């Protein structure tokens, strides 16, 4: 189950579906389904995916999207706080086995990682890569 159907969420959703997993996506914008249909033949639903419209904190929407039986939960909305809250809901209320959270702010990502959430921080990754690229360019270690 993936909450947040932007560039990141939709790309993961498509990849997972291609690999034969059952994929359910939740987003507050009904138009976001278009992201999922980029580069696939026909509609997302015809391809076997599900899509639910609703806000991330709405319990009804989470349940409708099937959070109760999700093996993995990805929080990839554009709000760090939203992601951190719904990830904890998945973890604590629904005991989802695998919970992954996207957090742009390195400080919050680091602290919540220490609290036992699996966070992925694109900012931290970008910093590492940029740093490496600059050093490589300069020829320094």
């Amino acid at each position: 189950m993936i909450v947040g159907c932007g560039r990141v969420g939709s790309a993961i959703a498509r990849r997972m579906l291609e690999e034969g997993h059952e994929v359910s996506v939740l987003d507050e914008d009904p138009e976001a389904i278009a992201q999922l249909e980029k580069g696939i033949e026909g509609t997302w639903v015809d391809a076997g995916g599900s899509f639910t419209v609703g806000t991330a904190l709405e319990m009804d929407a989470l349940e409708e999207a099937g959070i109760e039986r999700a093996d993995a939960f990805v929080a990839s909305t554009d709000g760090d706080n939203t992601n951190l809250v719904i990830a904890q809901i998945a973890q604590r209320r629904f005991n989802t086995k695998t919970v992954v959270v996207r957090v742009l702010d390195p400080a919050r990502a680091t602290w919540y990682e220490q609290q036992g959430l699996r966070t992925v921080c694109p900012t931290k990754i970008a910093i590492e890569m940029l740093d490496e690229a600059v050093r490589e360019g300069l020829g320094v270690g």
Partner: protein
Amino acid sequence: MYVLVVGAGKVGWNLTRELIQRGNEVTVVEHDPGRYATVEEELEHSAQYGDGSELWVLERAGIERADMVIAVTGDDEDNILICQVAREKYGVERVIARCNNPRNLQHFELLGIKPAVSATDLILRLIEHEVPRYGLLHLLDLPQERLEIIEVEVARGSPADGAPIRDLGLPDGSLAISILRDGTGFVPLADSVVQPGDEVLVVLDMGLEDKVSDRFKAPEGGAAAA
């Protein structure tokens, strides 16, 4: 006491002003530049500009020495996060969160953020408690313990009218703990007789309200006690 308020909307601004007036040291953090400028004109150094869910902004505002953190932004996820880091990361002992959408109260509860104050929920409770049932007043709700204490007025001609406490016929799980009469209160004995106009305090398991209040109501069609 040093209080950190996050969100300078109507609630945050008024709260900050009141807390300052009562002699507290207060900082209010606001992330909207226009709103910040307005608030800062009055509150001056007590207002700080920044996104209150950024840890460095909270640190700059002195969260580490705060006695209390109050998160009253318009976003429930922000209020949850702010209170969670305040308590768990910075060791702030007292937090208060505003819950904008009462449906989100369960999330505050799940993550241990309490008290969470929802104006909508408060008003709904007031409506439920004050408006519909004549002669019944909620004094205390203990949702965790699933108990409540209510005050009911004894109507003339009701089953309770003239009955001793032992014959009130209250359902199991409820107990009359006090009778208020003529401006004084006393703890009733089994043979204390209930009179019309008495106010009886009853402790009860949640959900028994209707069964309890039936004992104090005048029969259908009968006159209610003044």
